[in-house]
């Protein structure tokens, strides 16, 4: 009789367990496997000065004002460089979620530029997984300043510089992202025969997000320059900055040894030596407008 009671009690177990079964857990087993695409690797389309993996989504327009002040070692007379500044204005527009075009102008060499950022791969996990996001950036810069010697037979093509960059980025966590940017800058004309037309460079960019809207950003480009004109000392550009996102705007405040705001100027032509105090305060303000709904 006791054995029977034990058996009967054991038979009741399924009913007891069912009553307490967590329905929520059963949902995990029926959910379809999906691909989770990484978003917002960086807060905006620039790491500090260089392009980031981010681009405008379809129908979005970004207006950007980039500001660089002069060198801090100019001392209090020049308000540590604040008295002088140059401004780069640019617009970039997302034709699709993965393709954007941009135009810009910087007063250095009165340069107008146009660029295209093409998304190739997106970092993702889940059904389809990809460890990094990769985009291609192609840029043409046109130096529109008057030629040094108008009496010479000057060519329009001398004004041109071409830039190719691969933006390879990985969002490691909500807080930390890293980007590698191999760069090729081809300058149609250079200072002397000692300067090579092609400049190769590898950029490293990183950001650490310390709250939902702010991050510390870092950027460094190693420049491979086997030979160059005597009398000029080039330096690799290094920048540190803070990104602050406030809804439609992203503010980037930075300290950098490079005055330039396009690849040719801040990578290929950079002479700023941070050890001598040739550090520029700068900021970028960008505003995103949604021109068309998109989806």
């Amino acid at each position, binding site marked *: 009789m006791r054995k*029977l009671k034990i058996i009967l009690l054991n038979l009741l177990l*399924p009913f007891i367990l069912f009553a307490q079964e967590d329905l929520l857990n*059963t949902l995990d087993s029926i959910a379809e496997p999906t691909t989770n695409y990484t978003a917002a690797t960086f807060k905006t389309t620039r790491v500090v000065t260089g392009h980031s993996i981010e681009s405008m989504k379809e129908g979005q327009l970004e207006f950007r004002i980039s500001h660089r002040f002069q060198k801090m070692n100019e001392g209090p007379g020049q308000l540590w460089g604040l008295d002088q500044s140059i401004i780069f204005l640019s617009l970039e527009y997302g034709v699709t979620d993965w393709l954007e075009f941009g135009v810009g102008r910087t007063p250095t060499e009165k340069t107008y530029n146009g660029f295209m950022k093409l998304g190739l791969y997106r970092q993702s996990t889940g059904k389809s997984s990809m460890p990094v996001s990769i985009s291609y950036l192609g840029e043409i810069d046109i130096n529109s300043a008057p030629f040094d010697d108008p009496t010479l037979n000057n060519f329009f093509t001398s004004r041109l510089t071409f830039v190719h960059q691969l933006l390879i980025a990985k969002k490691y966590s909500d807080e930390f992202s890293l980007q590698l940017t191999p760069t090729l800058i081809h300058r149609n004309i250079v200072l002397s025969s000692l300067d090579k037309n092609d400049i190769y460079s590898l950029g490293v960019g990183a950001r650490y997000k310390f709250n*939902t*809207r702010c991050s510390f950003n870092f950027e460094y480009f190693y420049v491979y320059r086997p030979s160059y004109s005597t009398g000029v000392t080039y330096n690799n550009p290094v920048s540190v900055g803070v990104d602050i996102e406030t809804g439609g705007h992203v503010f980037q405040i930075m300290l950098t040894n490079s005055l330039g705001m396009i690849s040719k100027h801040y990578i290929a032509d950079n002479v700023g030596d941070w050890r001598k105090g040739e550090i520029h305060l700068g900021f970028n303000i960008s505003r995103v407008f949604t021109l068309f709904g998109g989806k």
Partner: protein
Amino acid sequence: MRKLCILILFWGLYTAAFAQDKYFSKTGHVWFYSKTPVEVIEAHNNQVASVISTKTGSLAFEIINKSFKFERALMEEHFNENYIESGKFPKSTFSGKFTDFDVTNFSKEGSYKVNVEGDLNIHGVKKHIKTPGTIDIKGGKIYAKSKFIVKPEDYGIEIPGLVRDKIGKNMDITVDIIYSPNK
């Protein structure tokens, strides 16, 4: 001994019948909406997973936060990055039961007004909520609808002063799910 065998036989049949008591949906529709003089916020999620147990009258929802789609990509990015923080909280869930509802009604066709009570978990905060809804049993499927209000600040979702006017204090949540007995 014979009695025991018959008992076990019946028990076996009864527990087998238990397995038929769940209705599922993998494509449930949940959307939220708020309107202020400055901005309209609306996002739709059409991949909500949900289950109703018709034997116990309980139900559960699992919502992947990243699956909420907005018309404006920037709004969707801010929703995930700054508000719901989908990196930290990938899912919103609900686990509860129908109150004062005769579960035998699940096998009869008809329209019923119901009340649901349970734990709503959003952004890592769990709150006990009660909400009315309607259930239509038709052609072997359960059509469930409900509308209720959620206050983002109740769930630790911080809305900074700068954008306070754009996001309503109350979010209208609408649930519209069709359940089938097959998984």
